[in-house]
């Protein structure tokens, strides 16, 4: 089998954060999160449930479904046990914050774990799509989970330009005894109430601590002996590559601009080709109206 890649390692790290019985929630446009949830449920967390597509669709499955762009909602609905309105998603969060796992991808994160998906100052002020539910939900979890496919100084900043999801230095309506875990392309990090800021917990194999320091815009706490992140197992890799994400949707989270568009279009064409060849004789849903 080909050696693991960073996207695969990150997904495995994300899956490891799930405990059996947890509720795994997915916000907007976070394909790596859903791949990690499918992996967790297919390996060590078979009793976990998934709230997919902004949390609206509760999914149970025996065999993990395939991650999809075009048929995302359709696939989730095939395995749906309950449909949540968005208010019911929040009712679940307010009641069950301690058993919910949710991964957020911030535009910026700072030393204390504050996140920003609203506006960044890059010379001029750049408008991002918005924090959506991150400012509401992320401080309520005992373990706030962040993933950053791009570990860069413009993402890991000294102070976020706009405080969306609260970190641990500003008070506010956050959960007590809370910690924040960050899984990036370079390593695993933590912010908690005891430390003065973000701390490196493990370095991904092959990553140098200098890579981390030079790509982080603030002072990190670095332990004397830095553990290495355990790599994916062959079971993990086979599940990701063959069952869950054979289309390699996970890679999109590392690309931008024309590269990303090209990769995306290839995935769409491939998805459509497979769909058509496996549904030749299927009556169109539209005709069943």
């Amino acid at each position, binding site marked *: 089998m080909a050696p693991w890649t960073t996207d695969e390692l990150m997904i495995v790290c994300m899956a490891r954060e799930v405990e059996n019985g947890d509720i795994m929630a997915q916000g*907007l*446009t976070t*394909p790596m999160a859903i791949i990690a949830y499918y992996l967790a449920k297919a390996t060590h967390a078979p009793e976990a449930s998934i709230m997919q*597509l*902004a949390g*609206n*669709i509760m999914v149970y499955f025996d065999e993990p479904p395939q991650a999809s*762009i*075009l*048929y995302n*909602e*359709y696939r989730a*609905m095939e395995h749906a046990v309950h*449909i*949540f*309105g*968005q*208010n019911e998603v*929040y009712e679940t969060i307010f009641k069950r914050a301690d058993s919910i796992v949710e991964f957020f991808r911030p535009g910026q994160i700072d030393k204390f774990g504050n996140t920003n998906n*609203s506006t960044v100052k890059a010379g*001029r*002020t*750049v*408008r*991002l*799509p*918005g*924090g*959506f*539910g*991150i*400012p*509401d*939900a992320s401080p309520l979890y005992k373990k706030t989970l962040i993933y950053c496919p791009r570990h860069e100084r413009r993402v890991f900043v000294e102070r976020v330009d*706009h*405080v*969306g*999801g*609260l970190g641990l230095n*500003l*008070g*506010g*309506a956050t959960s007590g005894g809370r910690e924040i875990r960050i899984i990036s392309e370079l390593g695993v990090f933590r912010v908690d109430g005891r430390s003065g800021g973000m701390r490196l917990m493990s370095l991904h194999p092959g990553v140098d601590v200098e890579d981390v320091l030079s790509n982080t815009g603030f002072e990190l706490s670095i332990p004397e002996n830095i553990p290495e992140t355990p790599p994916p197992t062959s079971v993990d890799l086979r599940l990701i590559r063959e069952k869950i994400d054979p289309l390699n949707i996970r890679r*999109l989270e590392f690309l931008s601009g024309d590269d990303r*568009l090209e990769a*995306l*279009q290839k995935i*769409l064409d491939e998805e*459509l080709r497979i769909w058509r060849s496996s549904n030749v004789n299927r009556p*169109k*849903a*539209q005709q069943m*109206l």
Partner: protein
Amino acid sequence: MSLREACECISDGDVLAIGGLTIHRKPMSMLHELIRLGRRGLSLLVFGGGPDVDLLIASGMVGSLDAAYVGFEILGFAPNFRSAVERGEIKFTEHTEYSIMAGLQANLLNAEFIPSRLLLGTDVLKSLGYKTFKSPLTGEALVAYPRITPDVALLHVQRCDEYGNAKVDGVLAIDLLLAKSSRRVILTSEKIVSAGEVAGSPFEVNLPSTFVDMVVESPLGAHPTSCYPYYTYDLWHMISYLEYCRRGMVNDYLRKYVAGVESFESYLDLVGEDALSRIMI
């Protein structure tokens, strides 16, 4: 009832709530008709916006926007939203999921506002400008999330009957809250069926007629966004839209596909059978 007749009840300056989520189940046929009617100075309330918001802004119809997210999900930023906000051409108030839902749900509870500690300490709350007050019960600081009561809600649904009993399928987002809290509610529906034929059971009719004012049949009315289980989003069409925008040619897109055509049917003809067959489930 026709799209045109339904749109006539929307006035310049109305607070317009748009259902669906980002690139899912947006009432696009109704928005096209509104653009053709040329309504101005609309205040939009949108939970997660996408092509809906971007198109209305590009058409110059939006005075202000309240939203928690505007983007094309996997396709990235919403270009006209982005530039209009960056240039200060529209008044944008950034919400979160909670601040919108709490404001809508205040109507449902006969509450003047919803008092919560959520968002205290964040910059989102600062820019919302919501009032903080001392709890009459505990003395603690609370945010008063005020009622949000849209004038009109536009929702696209999968099936409904002529009274407005509807089944909203797949991702629901906050469509049911919008229907319950808005003064008037207009549904476009893939199909209008007889009463009793909306769904297999009364539990699947999740939006009852008591919250609905008008219904219009509009097949494929969410295009290029999705409408589970009938069709997925037309990402190819949206990529082409974004390419028009990137080249500064959004007005050409609008002329070709919206203002320059008679009806949403003509738009679908322009999109073409091949493109539509790609998205059908």
